């Protein structure tokens, strides 16, 4: 389930739409919740963010994602399917860097589980980001607690 999490470059709309295909096989899932995260064109100390470069420890991402999915399914037993896509490499401001899709029997668990997945991805998956500014300087972000 988690082998295709990492996507080189921005997560395209096609990847997200293709990701939705697998959800047809769960007719008992009445709610699908989708989170899409984009790179913001933040201003940091007077510098504009042009892009974020993501790097990851791929083998561990797959392993830790399986743990996340299992724990979320345990907490939200109505969840039928989870998919997560996350960028590695350069993602420009305005482009999508992450998508999480969760199907559950009812919408409440789909939305709660989707929120939980996003929070866990940010703190549990070995992924790092470097903000690249328009003047081509950069800074490693250290904002998530591992």
């Amino acid at each position: 389930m988690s082998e295709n999490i990492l996507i080189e470059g921005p997560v395209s709309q096609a990847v997200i739409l293709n990701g939705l295909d697998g959800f047809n096989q769960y007719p008992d899932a009445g709610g699908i919740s989708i989170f899409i995260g984009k790179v913001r064109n933040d201003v940091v100390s007077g510098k504009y963010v042009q892009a974020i470069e993501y790097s990851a420890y791929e083998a561990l991402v797959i392993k830790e994602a399986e743990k996340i999915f299992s724990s979320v399914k345990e907490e939200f037993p109505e969840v039928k399917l989870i998919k997560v896509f996350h960028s590695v490499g350069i993602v420009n401001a305005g482009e999508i860097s992450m998508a999480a899709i969760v199907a559950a029997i009812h919408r409440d668990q789909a939305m709660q589980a989707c929120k939980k997945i996003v929070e866990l991805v940010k703190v549990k998956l070995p992924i790092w980001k470097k903000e690249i500014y328009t003047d081509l300087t950069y800074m490693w972000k250290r904002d998530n607690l591992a």
Partner: protein
Amino acid sequence: MEIKVFFFGILGDIAKTGFKHYRNITSFHDLEHRIEDDYPEFVHYTYRIAVNNEITDEKPDLKDGDQVALMPPFSGG
């Protein structure tokens, strides 16, 4: 023993490489000292350890051929 050490995030920037082989390592403690000797700047950063793709919060017992990853705080999303 020989240990392959991976440097992620800002640690890779400092090391100017994604990995390095350390030979004649006697223990994790020994490995830590060798890494600190090579990259004194690492002491200013916090990082977690993974051995053979398993995160550990303990000082691991290493064996020949192990792969050790040094991982600064995650920042995905």
